[in-house]
């Protein structure tokens, strides 16, 4: 697999360690939602427990932030901290984590089910993939994610997207191109993190 560097993540971590408030804001914007979604899926949507686990995972991750070396993306690193927290939680309670359930809201739109959608393996793969798509969107700047959703889920024309974003159509086209590239990078990075962690990644 191609080696990807995570210089941008390393720079963000350096700035945070230096006490840069803007860096912390950027960190929150980029990762809190994705991390929450990661945990919520593992915990079958238990809100209180998800909140507790994510708070604990972030507290511990931030306390050892200087150990982040950029070997994986920052989101993958945070997910790994969160996964440890979930495992520890269930070990302490001598219980097995509830398996990820496919909620109604994660089901694909009618007519989009692929062939073989009914067999358990396909369902699991699709569920994981959908989950990664949502996390990748969470990691993007909000207006990038919104623009992609408007285009591919709400099927809005570029002119309508441009209007909603308060920009010219040409600028919206450029923004969509940048958003697609950022989305792909984020999605592939999550995919790579999953491959590195093996089948029991969550």
């Amino acid at each position: 697999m191609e080696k990807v560097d995570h210089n941008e993540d390393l720079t963000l971590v350096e700035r945070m360690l230096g006490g840069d408030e803007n860096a912390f804001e950027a960190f929150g914007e980029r990762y809190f939602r994705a991390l929450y979604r990661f945990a919520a899926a593992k915990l079958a949507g238990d809100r209180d427990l998800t909140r507790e686990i994510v708070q604990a995972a972030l507290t511990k991750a931030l306390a050892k932030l200087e150990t982040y070396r950029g070997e994986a993306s920052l989101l993958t690193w945070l997910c790994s901290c969160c996964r440890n927290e979930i495992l520890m939680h269930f070990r302490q309670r001598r219980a097995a984590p509830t398996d990820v359930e496919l909620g109604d809201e994660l089901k694909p739109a009618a007519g989009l089910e692929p062939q073989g959608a009914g067999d358990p393996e396909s369902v699991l793969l699709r569920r994981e993939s959908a989950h990664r798509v949502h996390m990748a969107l969470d990691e993007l700047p909000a207006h990038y994610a919104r623009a992609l959703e408007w285009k591919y889920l709400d099927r809005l024309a570029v002119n309508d997207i441009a209007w909603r974003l308060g920009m010219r159509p040409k600028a919206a086209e450029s923004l969509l191109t940048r958003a697609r590239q950022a989305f792909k990078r984020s999605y592939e990075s999550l995919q790579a993190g999953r491959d590195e962690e093996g089948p029991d990644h969550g």
Partner: protein
Amino acid sequence: MDERDEETVAASLQEEEESVRRLLEMAGPRPLIQQEDLDAVSNAARSAWQTQVRRRAEAAAPRPERPFRALWMGLAAALAVAAGLAWWWLSRSGGAPPTVAWAEAVAGSVYVEEGTKAPRGIVKGEPISDGAVLRNDSGDEARASLRLAGGATVRLDVATRVRFVSAAALELERGGLYVDTGSRPRPRMAIEIRTPAGTVRDIGTQFAVRIDPKGTALLVRVRDGAIVAEHQGRTYLTHEGQELILRRDGTSQRREIAGHGAEWEWVLQAAPGFDIEGRSLGQFLDWVSRETGWRVRYADEGLQASAAGIVLHGSLGALRPDRAPFAILPGAGLEGRLEGGELIVRRLR
């Protein structure tokens, strides 16, 4: 780049678009995450981060106290104010057009065009004269907040072009504006926003106006108070919590909206800072409420009564209004909890 290269790039972009489209369609919409859950996570993370930063700073190099630092900073601030006043006084003389607004906060490249002069970038504190055009349509994420001579504030979203006809009338040629005419009822000039698709007048309010790129539709969102929009000889009264779209073909559309959330995100991004030093907790929370659209509720009456007597110190730095309470309240022995657009303030247990 030769023709073959261009074809290769185009094919690659098309392939990328197709794969992104397939993934998004397969995944469907993102399940909603409650804002209060994110706020709880954010508060815990901020606290852990601040502890980590403090620990590192202490470990690095403990510095001796510098008793004269505050004095020097005070002198520097006084000199800056004096220089600003002198410059403002000098700019008034010499027959220049009257100043109708001042830049309160500028992020990115925002330009002013005055008469025949070449456009120039503006900075915080810059006066805007009668007839000037402000624009931030160079394609970056530039935004600005301005205070009009009458006291109201106006914020420019990205890709906006607006002419300051007077301290009370603006012509929006492109993009979007947010207007806040103040919370207290007091005699002042009503603000008028003129657009190719209609005119909007405030009746003591906070509202956002946007026109589509062709100038054929006008969108107004009212967060607080009410506005009157005029369009093709008809008037439309629109109250807080409503969105109104007026189209040049004479049609209109109205819907209910929240005073907080995604529709107001850019307004938060363009918000000027708030100096908390010496201000009361009540004043701070009033500012938070006005900027975020959240209602503030105190957990008990005693706390509400004492809010005016709790004096804050320090600086918010780059904290946005929707993050500030969660960083500031713990320092006053309080905590904030966000529930459905309501910020509940209570004592730390």
